[in-house]
């Protein structure tokens, strides 16, 4: 039988693994044979007291028939800053699609990218330009003379390519995949 402190630690791990509200019943079920609802509630009281201690960045909340682990409200600003910083090291799926189109079909205009993706991609193309993965390279000599986009030197460096001819052929990627599914 776990001690109240051990039970509190176990509940903390479960709440952290879930990342959302966990019903008290589910905590009782996870705690194992013979652990009662009252014991879980006592353990949660220990956990809550421990996090109330100022030094913790987290707190335990009781929400509608369960508990959840949450970040302290005072860190909201820091979290926004953090997400902004992290976003710079990441690409959305939409941006990746636009990058793929530019990489394989360059030079290409925004209307052409929009046509292939089926949605306006002005925002994601701007992101790619800001990240220096894509750059403007002249204008297409058609009505409206739209800007032409190409991948940059940084793009090649990031992906470890000597030049654009080193990009995998689409059939190549597909073949590897097919062999993969059959071979494993």
């Amino acid at each position, binding site marked *: 039988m776990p001690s109240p402190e051990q039970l509190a630690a176990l509940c903390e*791990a479960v*709440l*952290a*693994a*879930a*990342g*959302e*509200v966990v019903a008290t019943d589910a905590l009782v079920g996870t705690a194992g044979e013979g652990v009662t609802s009252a014991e879980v509630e006592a353990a949660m009281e220990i956990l809550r007291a421990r996090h109330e201690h100022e030094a913790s960045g*987290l707190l335990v*909340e009781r929400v509608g028939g369960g508990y*959840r*682990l*949450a*970040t302290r*409200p005072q860190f*909201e600003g820091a*979290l*926004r800053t953090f*997400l902004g910083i*992290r*976003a710079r*090291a*990441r*690409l*959305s*799926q939409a941006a*990746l*699609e636009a*990058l*793929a*189109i530019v*990489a*394989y079909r360059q030079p290409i205009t925004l209307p052409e990218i929009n046509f*292939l*993706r*089926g949605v306006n991609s002005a925002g994601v193309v701007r992101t790619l330009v800001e*990240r220096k993965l894509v750059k403007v390279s002249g204008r297409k000599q058609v009505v409206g003379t739209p800007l032409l986009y190409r991948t940059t030197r940084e793009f090649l460096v*990031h*992906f*470890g*390519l000597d030049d654009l001819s*080193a*990009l*995998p*052929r*689409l059939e*190549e*990627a*597909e073949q*590897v995949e097919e062999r993969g599914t059959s071979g494993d």
Partner: protein
Amino acid sequence: MDPALVAPDERPRPTFSLAVFEGPLDLLLHLVREQKVSIWDIPIADICDQYHAALRVMDELDLEVAGEYLVYAAWLLLIKSRMLLPRHPEEAGEDPRKELVERLVEYEKVKAAAAELAGLEEVRRGMVGARAAAMVTPPEDELELEDLDVLAVAEALRTVLERHRREHPPVLELAPIRFSVRDKIMELYEMVRSQRSFPLLSHLLTRPDRLESVTLLIAALELVRLGTATVHQRRAFAEIYLTPTGEPLAVEALADA
């Protein structure tokens, strides 16, 4: 089959299944280790025989895997035969087993490294990244640029092209024009003139090509418009007859047909 490929019958059948091995190197390593000799001094004849005996239980393996085992079977035979050849001491030739041994040593290192990783994984299997609810929720579909590779880029393009193909099904392709209205007018005009009363409907329904029927119908309507023929039908769905009016066909009027 080379008789050497068939191990003597008195040899004990292997008591293991080949499916437990990762490949020919894994099997060879197992056989060598069972001999409890230094890997640098493999009794190649024994190992060769045992390896071939093991291959006899290979029915359970598919052909691709079997092929990989057979390459090593042939190699072992080659080494075995070279070992039998007398070597001139002054030649100081390389031990025929050298390359095989080097491969086994390298593979053993791979297995050791894999075991290390398995050990690390075992400890960490039960660990999950801790997550707490936050006022600001991080976006879900973002990819870490650092771990993104060209295969992911190629994959993204395939996704785009497939979606585009789904949303833009190929445009109905028009067959090249094979029948000209002008030719059909001339043809029909000749037939109407010679037959007096031409069964247009039967003719249209018996054309092998639908496009030809359509062209013929247009030609018939043209003849009527130009006043060189009239159409009549006695009742609905009955035969449609085309009869000449006696008016000659004005060929120059067909210029733009």
